[in-house]
């Protein structure tokens, strides 16, 4: 008994000693905030594999030529001013932009990074293609020193375009366009560069000061940052890494993080049940989800009438509202999601993307036509998809709709993500559940997806008119003309149905009401905390 | 008359089973005197083991329970004690050895440890001292190389050796009573003899009383001073070994005797088995339990509970034939008492 008592005392002591301070989500005195991430970034190298979680960090610790300012407007970063013409662009770098060891950021740091970015070994090298020779370098036909970028002097960077690129200034905020310190990169080598805090230099508002792999990360204010007066925060903590939405929600409830996405209906329900005082806000992830049909020869889905018939029996709002029920998702009628900017306002405000669909009764007509053309009595299709329970629900919904309304049998082929990608590339499907996220802030990031030469066009859709519109939009710097092209592309997709958009994904999130000045971004760091501040407790 | 070390009075034990209540022991009384051996005989299922197990607190409760009776150990009623109190007597004042020594010893503990355990709990000895004493005890039970043997496990012993070890264990605390529940049944005849000899010798040295439970009348003849014959949960006859053997007073005792192989009896007579089976103890008969199998049964036997008749010497028998009004013309050579009712 005495032993048990001793254990009890020891246990209680341990409990007391282990208790950390409650609620580090926001800390006014330390000027620190904490956020939770779903996965560890594979690397923080801007020429390594690109990941959205990597971009979250890179957007805080590095700075490109341009940046998004405290109003989330495009403005000068390392570059003070810039000029753009159809042939190229010139950037004038500010002389007080410094690395975290005090060295000045020069044009050569950008050239070094961009040449790495264009090389065949960078899987994201297509993002450099607006620059002259970039695509040839990516194919290994030219060496990377032929890239169309030159340093006029240490502080002047001149870019030559392959074709006119109206969105190039915005592109320089993308992670591949961040500068790299040659000495550091060469010292550690491509694989080990930027995988630990001491294995890189920083030129952004923050520096990475701690990275316990698989456990936690920490960013602190960069005292060498040229615009540090505007930075109020001292610390951004990532205390844990988990993709369990319930755990993340619990961390927010315990005030250990300042923000949380409510990614499933359960956490939304429990948030509602708790009557949290925190208001719920919605954000868009920028992703569009769709069914993609296999247009390869010999596939029944290469038949346009069959695709039309299928598209008419699938109700997007039923999928979004009844099947998925994920807060923040909205039915999507186009491959150009509603958040995209147009020539002046939002694209969707300038054009009507909700073209009327034919009535359900037409579906039978198209099906009959398709069966005749294909010479098939019975049609059986394979639906390739990956994901969790919600995508299962969607798959079953599609299976049922096609069976009940059209008598088409659907075999479900569920795979893990990487295998789905591999199978979709080799064409082992009739239709698949796909999705696409933007790489840069221009409709072209979605528009050229279905160009016949695009490797990511997994259904091998080929339409000459569509291809021509992509080329036209690529070569123009007139934004009105370009937006017209995108709208024409939408009409073609609407008619031909190579893909059938289902929804734009997004979510509901909660943020500590004391946290101000942050942005939820579609492109770039999400959330962007650079200009965040905390209101003092009352 | 010598002092009674253990005196069991009118013990009744029942068991709850799915079929109902089994009255396993139905008013058993017997006693054993210091330095003497009492043999309890009877066929299997007659309740002879249950009797001793219940006074040792070994019957599982439930389903078993003692409904009546006393077991006086030097005047202390073991059955009225709490479990904690009665544990003091078990192993210290009453030792017990069982039929199958192999299964009755813990296979994962050395023999020495198992002997020492008794000494540790009752005498408060340290383990080392207890183990030293265990060597002496094994010597005493004539196990060669005792100091090696105590470090061995039961599976390394032969059957006879194990039974000796078992005896060593049970006499470790010099008990006043040693209960031996069919100690030799599982052994070879030669080994049987050696073990019985050992028990006799130890009894002589230590002066303890022995209750020997057996169904082997040969063993009884060799060992016992007194005998109690049990049938269907009752003692049907008791007395000295001579009285019970040579002046058998109960038809069941006679039956047992004729079922025993004997050198003296003519070979052509053969063995005589007792016809029938023991009565159903769920619902024991009102009268004498042996009626159904008894060659001398009378009407009265069936309906009236038998009284106990006792001779002046203390030879007791539970049979109506001893009643003064009983007919004399019985087939069996029943030894008639003078007729005193108890």
């Amino acid at each position, binding site marked *: 008994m005495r032993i048990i008592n001793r254990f009890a005392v020891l246990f209680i002591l341990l409990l007391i000693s*282990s208790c950390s301070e409650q609620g580090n989500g926001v800390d006014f005195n330390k000027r620190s905030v904490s956020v939770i991430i779903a996965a560890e970034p594979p690397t923080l190298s801007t020429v390594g*594999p690109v990941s959205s979680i990597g971009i979250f960090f890179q957007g805080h610790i590095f700075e490109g030529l341009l940046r998004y300012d405290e109003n989330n407007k495009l403005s000068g970063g390392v570059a003070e001013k810039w000029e753009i013409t159809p042939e190229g662009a010139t950037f004038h770098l500010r002389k007080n932009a410094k690395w975290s060891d005090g060295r000045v950021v020069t044009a050569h740091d950008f050239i070094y990074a961009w040449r790495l970015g264009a090389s065949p070994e960078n899987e994201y090298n297509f993002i450099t293609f607006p620059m002259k020779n970039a695509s040839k370098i990516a194919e290994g036909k030219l060496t990377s020193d032929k890239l169309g970028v030159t340093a006029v002097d240490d502080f002047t960077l001149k870019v030559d375009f392959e074709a006119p690129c109206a969105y190039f200034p915005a592109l320089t905020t993308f992670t591949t366009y961040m500068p790299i310190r040659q000495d550091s990169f060469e010292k550690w080598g491509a694989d080990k560069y*930027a995988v630990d805090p001491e294995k890189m230099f920083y030129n952004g508002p923050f520096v990475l000061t701690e990275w316990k792999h698989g456990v936690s990360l920490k960013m602190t204010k960069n005292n060498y940052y040229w615009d540090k007066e505007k930075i109020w925060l001292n610390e951004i903590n990532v205390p844990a890494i988990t993709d369990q939405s319930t755990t993340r929600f619990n961390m927010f409830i315990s005030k250990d993080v300042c923000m949380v996405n409510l990614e499933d209906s359960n956490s939304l329900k429990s948030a509602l049940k708790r009557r949290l005082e925190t208001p719920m806000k919605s954000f868009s992830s920028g992703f569009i989800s769709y069914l993609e049909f296999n247009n390869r020869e010999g596939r029944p889905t290469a038949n346009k009438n069959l695709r039309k018939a299928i598209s008419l029996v699938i109700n997007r709002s039923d999928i979004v509202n009844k099947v998925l029920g994920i807060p923040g998702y909205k039915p999507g009628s186009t491959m150009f999601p509603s958040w995209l900017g147009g020539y002046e306002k939002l694209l969707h405000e300038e054009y009507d993307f909700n073209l009327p669909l034919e009535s359900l009764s037409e579906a039978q007509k198209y099906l009959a036509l398709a069966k005749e053309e294909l010479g098939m009595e019975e049609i059986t299709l394979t639906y390739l998809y990956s994901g969790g329970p919600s995508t299962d629900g969607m798959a079953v919904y599609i299976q049922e709709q096609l069976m009940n309304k059209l008598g088409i049998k659907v075999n479900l082929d569920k795979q893990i993500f990487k295998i789905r990608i591999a199978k979709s590339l080799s064409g082992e499907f009739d239709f698949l559940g796909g999705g696409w996220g933007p790489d840069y802030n221009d409709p072209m990031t979605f528009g050229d997806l279905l160009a016949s030469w695009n490797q990511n066009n997994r259904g091998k859709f080929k339409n000459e008119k569509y291809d021509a519109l992509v080329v036209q939009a690529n070569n123009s710097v007139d934004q009105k003309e370009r937006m017209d092209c995108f709208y024409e592309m939408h009409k073609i997709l609407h008619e031909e149905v190579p893909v059938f958009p289902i929804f734009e994904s997004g979510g509901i999130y909660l943020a500590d009401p004391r946290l101000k000045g942050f942005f939820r971004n579609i492109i770039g760091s999400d959330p962007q905390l650079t200009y965040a501040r905390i209101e003092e407790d009352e | 008359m010598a002092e009674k070390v253990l005196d069991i009075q009118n013990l009744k034990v029942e068991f709850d089973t799915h079929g109902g209540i089994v009255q396993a022991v139905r008013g058993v009384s017997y006693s054993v005197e210091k330095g003497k051996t009492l043999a309890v005989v009877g066929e299997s299922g007659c309740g002879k083991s249950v009797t001793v197990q219940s006074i040792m607190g070994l019957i599982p409760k439930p389903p078993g329970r003692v409904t009546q009776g006393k077991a006086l150990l030097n005047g202390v009623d073991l059955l009225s004690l709490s479990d904690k109190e009665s544990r003091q007597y078990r192993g210290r004042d009453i030792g017990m050895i*069982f039929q199958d020594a192999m*299964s*009755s010893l813990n296979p994962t503990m050395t023999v020495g440890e198992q002997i020492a355990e008794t000494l540790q709990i009752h005498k408060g000895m340290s383990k080392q001292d207890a183990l030293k004493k265990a060597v002496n005890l094994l010597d005493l039970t004539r196990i060669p190389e005792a100091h090696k043997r105590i470090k061995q496990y039961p599976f390394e012993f032969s059957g006879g050796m194990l039974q000796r070890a078992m005896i060593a264990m049970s006499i470790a605390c010099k008990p006043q009573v040693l209960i031996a529940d069919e100690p030799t049944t599982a052994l070879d005849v030669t080994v049987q003899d050696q073990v019985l000899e050992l028990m006799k010798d130890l009894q002589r040295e230590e002066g303890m009383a022995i209750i020997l439970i057996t169904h082997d009348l040969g063993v009884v003849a060799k060992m016992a001073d007194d005998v109690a014959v049990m049938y269907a949960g009752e003692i049907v006859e008791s007395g000295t070994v001579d009285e019970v053997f040579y002046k058998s007073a109960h038809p069941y005792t006679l039956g047992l005797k004729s079922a025993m192989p004997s050198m003296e009896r003519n070979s052509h007579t053969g063995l005589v088995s007792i016809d029938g089976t023991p009565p159903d103890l769920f619902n024991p008969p009102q009268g004498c339990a042996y009626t159904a199998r008894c060659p001398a049964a009378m009407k009265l036997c069936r309906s009236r509970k038998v009284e106990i008749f006792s001779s002046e010497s203390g030879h007791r028998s539970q049979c109506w034939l001893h009643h003064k009004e009983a007919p004399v013309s019985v087939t069996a050579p029943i030894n008639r008492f003078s007729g005193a009712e108890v």
Partner: protein
Amino acid sequence: MSKYVFKRLLSGFFTVFFIATVTFFGMHAIPGDPLSSDKVMSEASKEALNKKYGFDKPLYEQYFIFLKNTAQGDFGMSFTKKGQDVNDIIKQGFSESAKLGVLAILFAAFGGILWGALTAKYRNKWPDYLIMIFVILGISVPSFVFASFAQLFIVFLNQELNLVFPYRGDGSFVSLLVPALVLGLGTMAFLTRLMRSSLLEVINSDFVRTAKAKGLNSWQIFKSHELRNSILPVITILGPAIASITTGSFVIETIFTIPGLGKQFVEGVQQNDYTLIMGTTVFYGSFLVLMVLVVDIVYGFVDPRIKVGESK
């Protein structure tokens, strides 16, 4: 004995070798590779990267390279966790998982023995029924349900009572208690059932009757006679259980944010991280083989009738 251990180690080596070979070829047989991602790489990029990582070599050659490196104790660098050696990932992950796992095993073993003993002692009475209900729950309900509930419960308590009990792994010992309890729950339930049936057999055995006749009290009987004789099946289960529990549970680790090996293993599989998959598989296989061997040796200590390494 040493000859026996050597023989077992040798057969264990072949087991692991077999597992590794099957995994290696199975892994390469499924579509996709560590380099495949959402957006397609150009042919040139793919070629360049394949060359860099040696995927352009014939499969058997890659296999021999893998064998050679593994023989030298080097599993290579992770594909998806840049710049990290698989050896380091395993070392770190295992140290976290083992901490949690040992605690979970302790919970499971002690709990299983305790509850099992109680159910056997109170057989067919209410403590038995009550515990057996929990046992059935523990066996049939998946651990992530318990994990979520446990976490939610702690968070709720913290809020209501203004406490700061850790609801997730923060590196402290205390924060491991609840995850370990949840992790060990299934095994605990299983052991309880096992212990109950095995103890019931022992309780009715002759030697327990002997122990009673010697005047031992029920604790002494349990401690020196019943426990040791009934624990053997428990130990049989404990070996594989130690191997599977200490090498981590993906679900528990993600819910409680513990950077363990289970998480690494599942992430490796999800991302086709060849080196990580092979490293964790070989490690797990070897560890399992070793634990089963250890259990067989421990048998001999618990039950002297079993002589390890001697043929009967």
